[in-house]
């Protein structure tokens, strides 16, 4: 039987934990609301530029542009978007599982990573994979500049032929209760880029007039396309992180409540038992005195 004192101590510590998880839940939910808005704000651009690139790739596929041309795949570059902090449910683990499955499905192919987020860095190091670049401490304020170092490395690797494909892995924000791990092929750009990516795009297959000319426009558009999609995916990941953390912390808080309830019950029973025992001891003592 635990002593009264030790139970009192444990109740106190669980109460502290509950306070912490409650605070984290509230912080996450405030951040979540903003992050969800940012997801909503950044989706249209990503969608539009994706549609445009898919249209262009159909028109331009006959031209020798390495960004549109599929080539034999020996090395795949993966941009892995993860969170910096833990305590956010299973979202990182789910993405990592998807990465592992992706690699297992492609035997004989080499994989190299550009990692965003500390958790992803840990994963890559633990699994003995090769990272050519990584950034962490990205803020959730919705500024694209912060992720540019990562996208520049990736696009360079592809441009110089070291990577034959570039994929991005991240957690898509579906709703507060649901976040899905997802993978998308970003380069080379083709009709197969991003499942359902061309949806709603008018299937325009004529020639455009270009101002000033095709090469110059593509030189501007391709890096923009790449950056904005990755940026948008990072925003998705933030919204997912905060939503998952909020839910995880809410569960932790209600668990703590349950534990406190159970322990208080035990504590009260023990206290009752102790009081009863004391009374009966006093009573029997008094009896002994009277009789004697």
């Amino acid at each position, binding site marked *: 039987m635990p002593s009264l004192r030790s139970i009192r101590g444990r109740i106190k510590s669980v109460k502290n934990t509950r306070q912490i998880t409650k605070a984290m839940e509230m912080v996450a939910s405030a951040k979540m609301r903003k992050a969800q808005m940012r997801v909503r*704000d*950044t989706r*249209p*651009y990503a969608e*539009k*530029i994706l549609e*445009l690139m898919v249209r262009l790739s159909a028109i331009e596929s006959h031209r020798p542009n390495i960004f549109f041309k599929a080539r034999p795949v020996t090395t795949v570059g993966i941009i892995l978007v993860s969170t910096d902090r833990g305590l956010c449910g299973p979202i990182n683990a789910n993405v990592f599982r998807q990465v592992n499955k992706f690699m297992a499905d492609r035997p004989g192919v080499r994989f190299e990573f550009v990692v965003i987020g500390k958790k992803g860095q840990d994963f890559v190091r633990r699994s003995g994979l090769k990272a050519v670049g990584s950034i962490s401490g990205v803020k959730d304020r*919705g500024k*694209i500049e912060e992720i540019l170092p990562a996208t520049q490395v990736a696009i360079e690797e592809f441009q110089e032929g070291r990577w034959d494909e570039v994929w991005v892995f991240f957690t898509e924000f579906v709703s507060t209760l649901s976040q899905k791990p997802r993978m998308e092929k970003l380069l080379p750009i083709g009709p197969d880029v991003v499942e359902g990516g061309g949806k709603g795009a*008018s299937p*325009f297959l*004529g*020639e*455009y*007039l*270009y*101002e*000033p000319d095709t090469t*110059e*426009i593509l030189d*501007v*558009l391709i890096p*923009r396309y790449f*950056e*904005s999609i990755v*940026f*948008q995916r990072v925003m998705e990941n933030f919204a997912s992180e905060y939503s998952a953390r909020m839910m995880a912390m809410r569960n932790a808080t209600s668990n703590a409540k349950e534990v406190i309830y159970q322990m208080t019950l035990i504590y009260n029973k023990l206290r009752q038992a102790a009081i009863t025992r004391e009374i009966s001891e006093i009573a029997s003592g008094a009896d002994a005195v009277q009789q004697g």
Partner: protein
Amino acid sequence: MSFMLTLVTQERELISEEVDFVKANGVDGEFGVLTGHSPFISLLDPGELVVRKGDALYSYYVSGGVAEVLPKSVIILANTVERADEIDEQMAKRARHNAEEALKQPISEIERRTYLLELKRESVRLSIVARRRSTRHPGQISEE
């Protein structure tokens, strides 16, 4: 006859609705678009974007980007956009003044070019502000 105009930046969506006319500043000069325009893609220079919907005119400052024109839609992927009423006139004036001052000094060619660009940007901003004050620009489409 109206067509679908989408004006987006990486950070937000400003317009997504049916309009009648758009005028933008391409790298090879200004162009206007009505419904049924032949398809083209153009890079944009810093300049004013004018949108007409019914009788109302709306104007935006666009710092650059890409416009895709299709017969029934126009998509503008802008780098940054300011609505006419978001432009800070005082700041634009100060920036223009600074650029003018800097250009009077003996400076390197690269610096000169940056300041010229700056000067151009601020002049566009200020002309948008001036026009907005003088004519029938009611301000903002779909005030959110």
